Protein backbone atom coordinates (compact mmCIF):
# COMPACT_ATOMS: atom_id res chain seq x y z
CA UNK A 1 0.00 0.00 0.00
CA UNK A 2 1.57 3.22 -1.18
CA UNK A 3 0.23 6.40 0.33
CA UNK A 4 -0.44 9.15 -2.17
CA UNK A 5 -1.89 11.94 -0.06
CA UNK A 6 -3.06 12.82 3.41
CA UNK A 7 -5.77 15.33 4.12
CA UNK A 8 -7.08 16.52 7.44
CA UNK A 9 -10.53 18.09 7.68
CA UNK A 10 -11.80 20.07 10.63
CA UNK A 11 -15.21 19.36 12.08
CA UNK A 12 -16.90 21.81 9.74
CA UNK A 13 -15.49 20.12 6.66
CA UNK A 14 -12.74 22.62 5.94
CA UNK A 15 -9.41 21.38 4.69
CA UNK A 16 -6.79 22.20 7.31
CA UNK A 17 -3.91 20.06 6.20
CA UNK A 18 -2.83 18.57 2.94
CA UNK A 19 0.28 16.60 2.19
CA UNK A 20 1.00 14.89 -1.11
CA UNK A 21 3.48 12.32 0.07
CA UNK A 22 3.93 10.44 -3.17
CA UNK A 23 3.04 11.56 -6.67
CA UNK A 24 0.20 9.68 -8.30
CA UNK A 25 -2.75 11.99 -8.03
CA UNK A 26 -3.78 14.85 -10.22
CA UNK A 27 -2.66 18.23 -8.96
CA UNK A 28 -5.66 20.44 -8.40
CA UNK A 29 -5.96 24.09 -7.57
CA UNK A 30 -6.22 25.05 -3.92
CA UNK A 31 -9.87 25.87 -4.41
CA UNK A 32 -10.58 22.45 -5.89
CA UNK A 33 -9.08 20.78 -2.85
CA UNK A 34 -11.39 22.77 -0.63
CA UNK A 35 -14.35 21.70 -2.76
CA UNK A 36 -13.16 18.12 -2.56
CA UNK A 37 -12.93 18.28 1.21
CA UNK A 38 -16.38 19.80 1.45
CA UNK A 39 -17.81 17.14 -0.84
CA UNK A 40 -16.34 14.35 1.23
CA UNK A 41 -17.64 15.92 4.39
CA UNK A 42 -21.12 16.22 2.91
CA UNK A 43 -21.13 12.72 1.51
CA UNK A 44 -20.02 11.40 4.86
CA UNK A 45 -22.93 13.13 6.53
CA UNK A 46 -25.42 11.86 3.95
CA UNK A 47 -24.01 8.38 4.29
CA UNK A 48 -24.69 8.27 7.98
CA UNK A 49 -28.30 9.14 7.24
CA UNK A 50 -28.50 6.12 4.95
CA UNK A 51 -27.49 3.67 7.62
CA UNK A 52 -29.57 4.57 10.65
CA UNK A 53 -30.73 1.02 11.30
CA UNK A 54 -27.21 -0.08 12.12
CA UNK A 55 -26.68 2.15 15.09
CA UNK A 56 -29.38 0.52 17.16
CA UNK A 57 -28.28 -3.00 16.44
CA UNK A 58 -25.26 -3.04 18.71
CA UNK A 59 -27.33 -2.47 21.83
CA UNK A 60 -29.49 -5.57 21.54
CA UNK A 61 -27.84 -7.19 24.53
CA UNK A 62 -26.86 -4.41 26.91
CA UNK A 63 -25.48 -6.53 29.76
CA UNK A 64 -23.14 -8.45 27.52
CA UNK A 65 -21.94 -5.34 25.76
CA UNK A 66 -21.26 -3.72 29.12
CA UNK A 67 -19.09 -6.55 30.32
CA UNK A 68 -17.35 -6.60 26.96
CA UNK A 69 -16.76 -2.90 27.23
CA UNK A 70 -15.32 -3.25 30.70
CA UNK A 71 -12.98 -5.97 29.57
CA UNK A 72 -11.90 -3.83 26.66
CA UNK A 73 -11.19 -0.87 28.92
CA UNK A 74 -9.15 -3.03 31.30
CA UNK A 75 -7.09 -4.57 28.54
CA UNK A 76 -6.41 -1.49 26.44
CA UNK A 77 -6.85 1.35 28.91
CA UNK A 78 -9.11 3.11 26.43
CA UNK A 79 -12.79 3.81 26.83
CA UNK A 80 -13.57 4.08 23.16
CA UNK A 81 -12.00 3.30 19.87
CA UNK A 82 -10.37 6.42 18.49
CA UNK A 83 -12.20 5.92 15.25
CA UNK A 84 -15.78 7.11 15.64
CA UNK A 85 -16.51 6.52 11.99
CA UNK A 86 -19.01 3.71 12.44
CA UNK A 87 -21.91 4.62 10.22
CA UNK A 88 -20.49 7.05 7.73
CA UNK A 89 -18.44 6.60 4.64
CA UNK A 90 -15.34 4.56 5.44
CA UNK A 91 -13.54 3.75 2.25
CA UNK A 92 -13.76 4.19 -1.48
CA UNK A 93 -12.20 1.91 -4.03
CA UNK A 94 -11.64 3.03 -7.58
CA UNK A 95 -9.52 1.73 -10.42
CA UNK A 96 -6.57 3.95 -9.64
CA UNK A 97 -6.73 4.80 -5.96
CA UNK A 98 -8.28 3.86 -2.65
CA UNK A 99 -9.44 6.41 -0.15
CA UNK A 100 -9.95 5.85 3.58
CA UNK A 101 -11.68 8.05 6.10
CA UNK A 102 -10.98 8.10 9.81
CA UNK A 103 -13.04 10.28 12.11
CA UNK A 104 -12.00 11.17 15.63
CA UNK A 105 -14.45 11.59 18.48
CA UNK A 106 -14.11 15.35 18.12
CA UNK A 107 -15.20 15.23 14.50
CA UNK A 108 -11.86 15.75 12.81
CA UNK A 109 -11.46 13.63 9.71
CA UNK A 110 -8.20 12.13 8.53
CA UNK A 111 -8.26 11.10 4.90
CA UNK A 112 -5.74 8.84 3.27
CA UNK A 113 -5.48 8.31 -0.48
CA UNK A 114 -3.48 5.22 -1.32
CA UNK A 115 -2.62 3.10 -4.31
CA UNK A 116 -5.37 0.67 -5.33
CA UNK A 117 -5.39 -2.92 -4.15
CA UNK A 118 -4.78 -5.68 -6.67
CA UNK A 119 -8.01 -7.03 -8.09
CA UNK A 120 -9.38 -9.97 -6.16
CA UNK A 121 -12.10 -12.13 -7.50
CA UNK A 122 -14.19 -12.84 -4.52
CA UNK A 123 -16.12 -15.79 -5.79
CA UNK A 124 -13.23 -18.20 -6.04
CA UNK A 125 -11.77 -17.11 -2.77
CA UNK A 126 -14.88 -17.85 -0.79
CA UNK A 127 -15.04 -21.42 -1.94
CA UNK A 128 -11.66 -22.02 -0.39
CA UNK A 129 -12.10 -20.27 2.91
CA UNK A 130 -15.56 -19.44 4.12
CA UNK A 131 -14.47 -17.62 7.23
CA UNK A 132 -11.94 -15.50 5.43
CA UNK A 133 -12.57 -11.80 5.76
CA UNK A 134 -12.45 -9.75 2.64
CA UNK A 135 -9.12 -8.53 1.35
CA UNK A 136 -10.44 -4.98 1.40
CA UNK A 137 -11.33 -5.12 5.09
CA UNK A 138 -7.76 -6.14 5.77
CA UNK A 139 -6.55 -3.16 3.81
CA UNK A 140 -8.87 -1.01 5.84
CA UNK A 141 -7.26 -2.30 9.02
CA UNK A 142 -3.88 -1.53 7.55
CA UNK A 143 -4.96 2.02 6.80
CA UNK A 144 -6.34 2.26 10.29
CA UNK A 145 -2.88 1.60 11.69
CA UNK A 146 -1.53 4.56 9.75
CA UNK A 147 -4.42 6.66 11.01
CA UNK A 148 -3.66 5.83 14.61
CA UNK A 149 -0.07 6.98 14.22
CA UNK A 150 -1.21 10.09 12.43
CA UNK A 151 -3.65 10.88 15.19
CA UNK A 152 -0.92 10.54 17.80
CA UNK A 153 1.39 12.83 15.84
CA UNK A 154 -1.48 15.26 15.34
CA UNK A 155 -2.21 15.34 19.06
CA UNK A 156 1.44 15.78 19.95
CA UNK A 157 2.64 18.25 17.38
CA UNK A 158 -0.46 20.20 16.41
CA UNK A 159 -2.75 20.26 19.41
CA UNK A 160 0.12 20.91 21.81
CA UNK A 161 1.49 23.69 19.66
CA UNK A 162 0.71 26.91 21.60
CA UNK A 163 0.68 28.95 18.41
CA UNK A 164 -1.91 26.79 16.69
CA UNK A 165 -5.46 28.09 16.63
CA UNK A 166 -8.20 25.52 16.47
CA UNK A 167 -9.80 24.65 13.11
CA UNK A 168 -7.24 26.71 11.22
CA UNK A 169 -4.84 25.35 8.59
CA UNK A 170 -1.88 23.48 10.03
CA UNK A 171 1.42 25.07 9.11
CA UNK A 172 3.91 23.26 11.24
CA UNK A 173 7.14 21.98 9.75
CA UNK A 174 7.60 19.68 12.74
CA UNK A 175 4.27 18.03 12.00
CA UNK A 176 5.19 17.75 8.32
CA UNK A 177 8.39 16.00 9.29
CA UNK A 178 6.68 13.56 11.61
CA UNK A 179 4.07 12.73 8.99
CA UNK A 180 6.84 11.92 6.54
CA UNK A 181 8.39 9.63 9.12
CA UNK A 182 5.16 7.63 9.47
CA UNK A 183 4.69 7.05 5.77
Amino acid at each position, binding site marked *: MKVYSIYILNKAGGLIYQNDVNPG*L*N*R*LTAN*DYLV*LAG*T*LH*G*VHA*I*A*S*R*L*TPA*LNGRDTTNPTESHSNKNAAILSTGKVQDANSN*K*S*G*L*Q*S*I*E*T*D*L*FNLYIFQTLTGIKFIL*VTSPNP*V*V*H*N*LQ*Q*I*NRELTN*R*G*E*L*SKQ*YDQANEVFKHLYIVYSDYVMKDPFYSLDMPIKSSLFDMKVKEII
Partner: protein
Amino acid sequence: MTIYSFHIFDRHCNCIYNREYSHSSSDNNNNSTTVGIVNKNNDSNGSKLLFGILYSLKSMSSKLIDEETSPIPNALKSFTLGKFRIHYFESLTNLKFILITDINIDNLQHILWELYSNYYIKNCIQNSLSPIEFKISDDLKENELTGKINNHNFIHQTDQFLQSLSVFN
Protein backbone atom coordinates in the same frame (compact mmCIF):
# COMPACT_ATOMS: atom_id res chain seq x y z
CA MET B 1 -21.70 -12.80 2.94
CA THR B 2 -24.92 -11.38 1.70
CA ILE B 3 -26.36 -9.40 -1.12
CA TYR B 4 -28.92 -7.01 0.28
CA SER B 5 -30.22 -5.15 -2.70
CA PHE B 6 -29.82 -4.31 -6.34
CA HIS B 7 -30.52 -0.93 -7.95
CA ILE B 8 -30.39 0.44 -11.45
CA PHE B 9 -30.35 4.18 -12.10
CA ASP B 10 -30.83 5.54 -15.59
CA ARG B 11 -29.10 8.54 -17.11
CA HIS B 12 -31.78 10.87 -15.85
CA CYS B 13 -30.88 9.99 -12.28
CA ASN B 14 -34.11 8.03 -11.74
CA CYS B 15 -34.08 4.74 -9.98
CA ILE B 16 -35.61 2.49 -12.62
CA TYR B 17 -35.16 -0.78 -10.83
CA ASN B 18 -34.96 -1.59 -7.18
CA ARG B 19 -34.84 -5.08 -5.75
CA GLU B 20 -34.40 -5.71 -2.07
CA TYR B 21 -33.77 -9.20 -0.85
CA SER B 22 -34.88 -10.28 2.55
CA HIS B 23 -32.87 -12.98 4.22
CA SER B 24 -35.06 -13.95 7.14
CA SER B 25 -35.36 -17.68 7.66
CA SER B 26 -39.16 -17.77 7.49
CA ASP B 27 -39.05 -16.67 3.88
CA ASN B 28 -36.73 -19.39 2.77
CA ASN B 29 -39.31 -22.12 2.32
CA ASN B 30 -41.46 -19.91 0.12
CA ASN B 31 -40.92 -19.53 -3.56
CA SER B 32 -37.48 -17.99 -3.55
CA THR B 33 -38.13 -15.53 -6.35
CA THR B 34 -40.77 -13.68 -4.41
CA VAL B 35 -38.67 -13.05 -1.32
CA GLY B 36 -38.03 -9.37 -0.77
CA ILE B 37 -39.57 -6.48 -2.62
CA VAL B 38 -39.39 -5.24 -6.18
CA ASN B 39 -39.64 -1.60 -7.20
CA LYS B 40 -41.12 -0.42 -3.94
CA ASN B 41 -38.54 2.10 -2.85
CA ASN B 42 -37.58 3.69 -6.15
CA ASP B 43 -38.68 7.13 -5.10
CA SER B 44 -37.76 6.82 -1.45
CA ASN B 45 -35.25 9.12 0.17
CA GLY B 46 -32.88 6.20 0.52
CA SER B 47 -32.53 5.78 -3.23
CA LYS B 48 -32.07 9.48 -3.71
CA LEU B 49 -29.41 9.70 -1.04
CA LEU B 50 -27.66 6.71 -2.56
CA PHE B 51 -27.64 8.36 -5.93
CA GLY B 52 -26.36 11.60 -4.45
CA ILE B 53 -23.46 9.82 -2.81
CA LEU B 54 -22.62 7.95 -5.99
CA TYR B 55 -22.71 11.08 -8.05
CA SER B 56 -20.35 13.02 -5.79
CA LEU B 57 -17.94 10.15 -5.35
CA LYS B 58 -17.85 9.52 -9.05
CA SER B 59 -16.95 13.08 -9.87
CA MET B 60 -14.38 13.07 -7.10
CA SER B 61 -12.68 9.92 -8.29
CA SER B 62 -12.37 11.24 -11.81
CA LYS B 63 -11.11 14.59 -10.58
CA LEU B 64 -8.29 13.21 -8.48
CA ILE B 65 -6.64 11.36 -11.35
CA ASP B 66 -5.05 13.18 -14.21
CA GLU B 67 -6.72 12.23 -17.48
CA GLU B 68 -3.47 12.35 -19.41
CA THR B 69 -1.61 9.86 -17.27
CA SER B 70 -4.23 7.15 -17.50
CA PRO B 71 -5.56 5.80 -20.78
CA ILE B 72 -8.93 4.90 -19.31
CA PRO B 73 -10.94 7.21 -17.09
CA ASN B 74 -10.77 6.29 -13.44
CA ALA B 75 -13.92 4.45 -12.43
CA LEU B 76 -15.45 4.10 -9.02
CA LYS B 77 -15.71 0.44 -8.05
CA SER B 78 -17.06 0.28 -4.56
CA PHE B 79 -17.30 2.06 -1.25
CA THR B 80 -18.29 1.19 2.28
CA LEU B 81 -20.93 2.76 4.46
CA GLY B 82 -20.96 1.46 7.98
CA LYS B 83 -21.47 -2.26 7.64
CA PHE B 84 -22.32 -2.26 3.94
CA ARG B 85 -20.25 -2.27 0.83
CA ILE B 86 -21.76 -0.72 -2.26
CA HIS B 87 -20.59 -2.00 -5.62
CA TYR B 88 -20.95 0.22 -8.58
CA PHE B 89 -20.77 -0.21 -12.32
CA GLU B 90 -21.63 2.32 -14.97
CA SER B 91 -22.30 1.43 -18.58
CA LEU B 92 -21.30 3.67 -21.46
CA THR B 93 -24.90 4.80 -21.71
CA ASN B 94 -24.71 6.09 -18.14
CA LEU B 95 -26.82 3.35 -16.67
CA LYS B 96 -25.69 2.78 -13.13
CA PHE B 97 -25.83 -0.69 -11.65
CA ILE B 98 -25.53 -0.96 -7.90
CA LEU B 99 -25.31 -3.92 -5.57
CA ILE B 100 -25.42 -3.40 -1.84
CA THR B 101 -23.72 -6.22 0.02
CA ASP B 102 -22.00 -7.26 3.16
CA ILE B 103 -18.70 -5.53 3.90
CA ASN B 104 -16.66 -8.68 3.33
CA ILE B 105 -17.40 -9.03 -0.36
CA ASP B 106 -14.57 -7.37 -2.22
CA ASN B 107 -15.21 -7.26 -5.91
CA LEU B 108 -18.41 -7.76 -7.83
CA GLN B 109 -17.50 -5.91 -11.00
CA HIS B 110 -17.87 -8.98 -13.17
CA ILE B 111 -21.27 -9.72 -11.64
CA LEU B 112 -22.47 -6.23 -12.39
CA TRP B 113 -21.12 -6.54 -15.91
CA GLU B 114 -22.95 -9.82 -16.29
CA LEU B 115 -26.17 -8.24 -15.05
CA TYR B 116 -25.80 -5.53 -17.63
CA SER B 117 -24.57 -7.49 -20.63
CA ASN B 118 -26.57 -10.67 -20.22
CA TYR B 119 -29.71 -9.70 -18.42
CA TYR B 120 -30.39 -6.04 -19.00
CA ILE B 121 -29.49 -6.07 -22.68
CA LYS B 122 -31.30 -9.33 -23.39
CA ASN B 123 -34.48 -8.51 -21.56
CA CYS B 124 -34.81 -4.77 -21.76
CA ILE B 125 -32.83 -3.49 -24.72
CA GLN B 126 -33.56 -6.32 -27.14
CA ASN B 127 -37.16 -6.42 -26.04
CA SER B 128 -39.10 -4.27 -28.47
CA LEU B 129 -41.95 -3.82 -26.00
CA SER B 130 -39.70 -2.34 -23.36
CA PRO B 131 -39.35 1.45 -23.38
CA ILE B 132 -36.00 2.89 -24.40
CA GLU B 133 -36.19 5.70 -21.92
CA PHE B 134 -37.68 5.13 -18.52
CA LYS B 135 -37.92 8.80 -17.79
CA ILE B 136 -41.26 10.02 -16.62
CA SER B 137 -42.04 13.29 -18.33
CA ASP B 138 -43.80 15.86 -16.20
CA ASP B 139 -47.20 15.38 -17.77
CA LEU B 140 -47.00 11.63 -17.25
CA LYS B 141 -46.47 11.93 -13.53
CA GLU B 142 -49.53 9.95 -12.41
CA ASN B 143 -48.64 6.96 -14.57
CA GLU B 144 -45.59 6.07 -12.56
CA LEU B 145 -45.28 2.52 -13.83
CA THR B 146 -43.61 3.60 -17.06
CA GLY B 147 -40.62 4.74 -15.08
CA LYS B 148 -39.62 1.33 -13.82
CA ILE B 149 -38.47 -1.97 -15.15
CA ASN B 150 -41.47 -4.22 -14.72
CA ASN B 151 -40.25 -6.83 -17.13
CA HIS B 152 -41.06 -10.18 -15.58
CA ASN B 153 -38.28 -12.04 -17.37
CA PHE B 154 -35.70 -9.54 -16.27
CA ILE B 155 -36.78 -9.67 -12.65
CA HIS B 156 -36.99 -13.43 -12.66
CA GLN B 157 -33.67 -14.05 -14.37
CA THR B 158 -31.65 -11.54 -12.37
CA ASP B 159 -33.11 -12.99 -9.19
CA GLN B 160 -32.11 -16.44 -10.23
CA PHE B 161 -28.67 -15.30 -11.23
CA LEU B 162 -27.97 -13.41 -8.03
CA GLN B 163 -29.37 -16.15 -5.85
CA SER B 164 -27.19 -18.72 -7.53
CA LEU B 165 -24.04 -16.86 -6.49
CA SER B 166 -22.05 -18.25 -3.62
CA VAL B 167 -21.90 -14.82 -2.04
CA PHE B 168 -25.67 -14.47 -1.94
CA ASN B 169 -26.30 -16.11 1.40
